[in-house]
C-alpha cells in the first residue's frame, strides 16, 4: 500500500485511551443523578471521542487519501439532514395526541369510542357493486 509508511500509530496507546474512556463513560452513565442534558451531553461526547479514535486510527481513516475521505464526507451531512428533518415531525410533534380514547356516554354512562358505534358494519370482503351510492 502506498500510504503505509505514514500510517504508523501506536495501537497500544489508542487501545488504552479507549478502555479508559469506556470506564469513565460507564461510571458517568450509572452514577450520575438522573438523566439530564448534562449527563447526556457528557456521554455523547465520550462516545463520540471513542468513535473517532476507532475511526481515525483503527480504521486508518486519518491516513487515507482524498478519495476515501470524499466517499465518507456525504454521510455526516446526510445524517444531519435525515435526523434534522424527521425531528420536528416525530421527535417534537406538537400535534401528537394519543388520547383518542374511551369517552363515557353522557346518557348511559357506557364507555364507547367515538365513531365506533356500529363496528359490525365494517365487514370486509363482499361484492361492492351492489353497495354503490349507499348511505
Amino acid at each position, binding site marked *: 500500500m502506498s500510504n503505509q509508511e505514514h500510517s504508523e500509530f501506536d495501537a497500544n496507546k489508542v487501545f488504552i485511551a479507549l478502555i479508559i474512556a469506556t470506564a469513565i463513560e460507564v461510571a458517568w452513565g450509572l452514577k450520575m443523578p438522573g438523566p439530564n442534558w448534562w449527563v447526556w451531553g457528557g456521554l455523547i461526547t465520550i462516545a463520540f471521542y471513542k468513535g473517532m479514535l*476507532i475511526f481515525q486510527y*483503527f480504521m486508518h481513516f486519518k491516513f487515507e487519501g482524498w478519495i476515501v475521505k470524499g466517499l465518507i464526507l456525504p454521510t455526516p451531512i446526510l445524517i444531519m439532514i435525515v435526523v434534522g428533518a424527521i*425531528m420536528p415531525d416525530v421527535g417534537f410533534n406538537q400535534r401528537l395526541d394519543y388520547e383518542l380514547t374511551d369517552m363515557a356516554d353522557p346518557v348511559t354512562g357506557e364507555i364507547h369510542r367515538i365513531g365506533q358505534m356500529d363496528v359490525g358494519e365494517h365487514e370486509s370482503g363482499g361484492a361492492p357493486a351492489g353497495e354503490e351510492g349507499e348511505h
Partner: protein
Amino acid sequence: MSSSTHSIAYDPAVDAPKPHHPVYDYDSGPPVDRGKFAIWLFLATEVMFFTGLIGSYVVIRTGAPTWPDPSSRLAVDLTAFNTFVLIVSSYFVVRSLQAIQKGNRGALLKWLGLAILFGSFFVGVQVYEYIHLVHEGSTPNVDLFWSTFYAMTGFHGMHVIVGVIWLICVWIAAARGKYSAENHVRVELAGLYWHFVDLVWVLLFTIVYLF
C-alpha cells in the same frame, strides 16, 4: 428514410470477437486499492443503514412521552464488560494487520484467532442476554423501549456474526499461507468492517444502555 448508416458491411474477420486475445485490465483514478475503495463505499452505505435505525430510535425516543431508565431494565455492567471485549477484539485485529504488514504470518494467525475468539464471546454474551430477557417476558412487542432495543442490538449483532464469519474466512486463508507483507489487502478489508462494527457498538452502547 433508411437513414441508419451501415457504412461498412459486416465483416466477420474484423467485427467478430477473436477467440484468443489478451485481456487489458487498466488501472486509473486515485492510488487506492479497488477492494479498499469498494469497502469504503460499502461502509458508507452501512453508515446510512444505521442512520435509518439509530435515527428512528432517536426521534422515537424524543417523541415518546416517557422512557424507562435503561439501567432499570438492562444489565449494564455485563454489557459494559462486553463492550470492553469488543474493543479488545478490535485492537487484536489492528495488531494482526500490523503483523502481516511486517510479514509475520504466525503473529497474524495468533492475533486474528484471538480477535475471532473475543468476537464470538461478544456474540455469546448477547445471545445469553437475549435469552434471559425473553424469558423474563421482555419481548419486542412489549413496548417501544424493547422494540428499539431489539431492532438496534439485533441488527448490530447480525453484523458481528457476519464479521466473525468473515474473520474466520480470512484466518483460514491466512493459515493456508495466502497473505504476505506485499499482499494483505483482504486482511485490511475484513479489519475495516470489524472496526466499523465496533464503532457502531460504541455508539449503541452509549445511547441504548447508558442514556
